[in-house]
């Protein structure tokens, strides 16, 4: 993120367009194997290009700002988008799932990014957007995957393990005793990508941010140091986020009366993959309240 004057070779519009041809590999595979992903792939590619080109100019503007409130607002907006996207990819929903996701994302990202920026990197001022925004972006982008995996795995786990969970309840187990295996499994699965990527970091993969810095002429040594900090931030934010979101889902899908409340779980149609604006309001926060319904 250091704007090195040296700079990398510029990529022209034509070269950009050529790189887009690479996505044809995915589309081709999808058609041959009938994965039904063609449309999503094209939409995702277009979104990626448009969002990045836009963000390029937005960032140029943002980095010139010096208003703490404005920058914090942008950060919150980023968290909001991450929270919504995390839920968008799950196969099932329950009332309040979006709010749960937002609370978790805000808490985990704010805590971890705040600690790292204020306690470790210490830019002046603390809200210097050139540090805060990209770091937060890295954290959010990765927490997002953890949340989706954790939520999805937990909801599926409760559904497929329903008989097992209810057997434990029927024998006098508490809701925690009955569900803990499912909770643990969901958190474990959600942490796997983070752990995997740390394992092979630098050997197999050069993370995007570091690649960008190096192409821009930053010394690899310095870029690596940033990357290490960022990976630790990602790992802890993902852990906190997954723990929070699965915990909240557990509270929602069981009751204080030690019942399994799968009646609160609704399966989303395949269209949920594209971005379901219609059902969005429905799952935002309706019917949130205590976890007990039986007096």
């Amino acid at each position, binding site marked *: 993120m250091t704007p090195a004057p040296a700079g990398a070779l510029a990529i022209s519009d034509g070269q950009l367009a050529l790189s887009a041809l690479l996505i044809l590999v995915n589309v081709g595979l999808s058609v041959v194997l009938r994965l039904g992903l063609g449309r999503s792939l094209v939409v995702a590619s277009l979104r990626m290009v448009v969002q990045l080109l836009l963000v390029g100019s937005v960032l140029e503007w943002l980095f010139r700002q010096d208003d703490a409130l404005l920058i914090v607002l942008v950060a919150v907006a980023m968290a909001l988008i991450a929270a919504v996207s995390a839920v968008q990819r799950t196969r099932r929903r329950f009332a309040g799932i979006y709010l749960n996701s937002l609370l978790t994302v805000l808490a985990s990202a704010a805590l971890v990014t705040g600690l790292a920026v204020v306690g470790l990197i210490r830019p002046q001022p603390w809200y210097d957007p050139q540090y805060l925004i990209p770091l937060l972006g890295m954290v959010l982008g990765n927490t997002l995957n953890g949340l989706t995996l954790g939520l999805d795995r937990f909801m599926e786990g409760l559904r497929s393990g329903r*008989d*097992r969970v*209810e*057997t*434990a*309840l*029927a*024998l*006098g*187990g*508490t809701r925690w*005793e009955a569900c803990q295996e499912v909770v643990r499994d969901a958190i474990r699965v959600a942490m796997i990508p983070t752990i995997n990527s740390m394992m092979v970091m630098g050997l197999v993969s050069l993370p995007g941010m570091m690649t960008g810095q190096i192409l821009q002429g930053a010394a690899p040594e310095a870029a690596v140091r940033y990357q290490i900090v960022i990976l630790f931030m990602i790992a802890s934010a993902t852990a906190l986020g997954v723990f929070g979101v699965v915990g909240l889902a557990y509270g929602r899908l069981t*009751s204080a*009366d*030690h*019942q*399994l*409340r799968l009646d609160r779980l609704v399966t989303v149609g395949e269209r949920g993959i594209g971005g379901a604006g219609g059902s969005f309001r429905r799952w935002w926060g309706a019917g949130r309240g205590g976890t007990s*319904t*039986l*007096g």
Partner: protein
Amino acid sequence: MALPHCRALDRPLLLRAEGLKRQLGDRLLWGGLDLELAAGERLGLVAPSGAGKTLLLRALALLDPLQAGSIRLQGRPPSAWGLPCWRSMVSYLAQRPVAQGGTVETNLRAPWAFRELRGRGGWSRGRITVWLEALGRDPSFLTYDAERLSGGELQLLALLRALQFDPTVLLLDEPTASLDGSTTTALEALLIAWLGGGGRAAVFTSHDSGQIERFASRSLELVP
């Protein structure tokens, strides 16, 4: 409540449900349902498939939220017992029981680790062996791989798993559906002997009208 009077009777009232209701969407399965269960009773639930027999048993075990009405066990509401305690005393056996990995013995021991059941005597191989013998099974049954049991053997496992906690009320959802004739007879005899232990009762469902006639001391027809 009515309980103090009932205690004086020779058959004390164990479970009393009043005004229970169950609705699935717009469809009323049963409503205004009152139910009293005295010690030693074997109450057979009679209703066609889909009439909500299983849901009634689940409601008595409080595995689903009550839509209406109240239930008391020995005069006390669920909140006074605590739900895990309630379910260890009002024991529900699912129609298709499930077992976890490991042997039958692992499965029988597993629930003793629950906070609610710790310090209640614990695993007793002796009692289980006696019950197994009554069911015509060898003690080697305990070493079987629980995930490879037949449907009938799973039902036996589930019954033993519940019996070892001496529940007050057994809720049996088609307990012999997958069992052969002689094991069914043996299981009925075992249950009658067990209920004779005093202060215990059973509610069961069956699609075998012969079993209702043979085994039930009373029957209840579920109507909307």
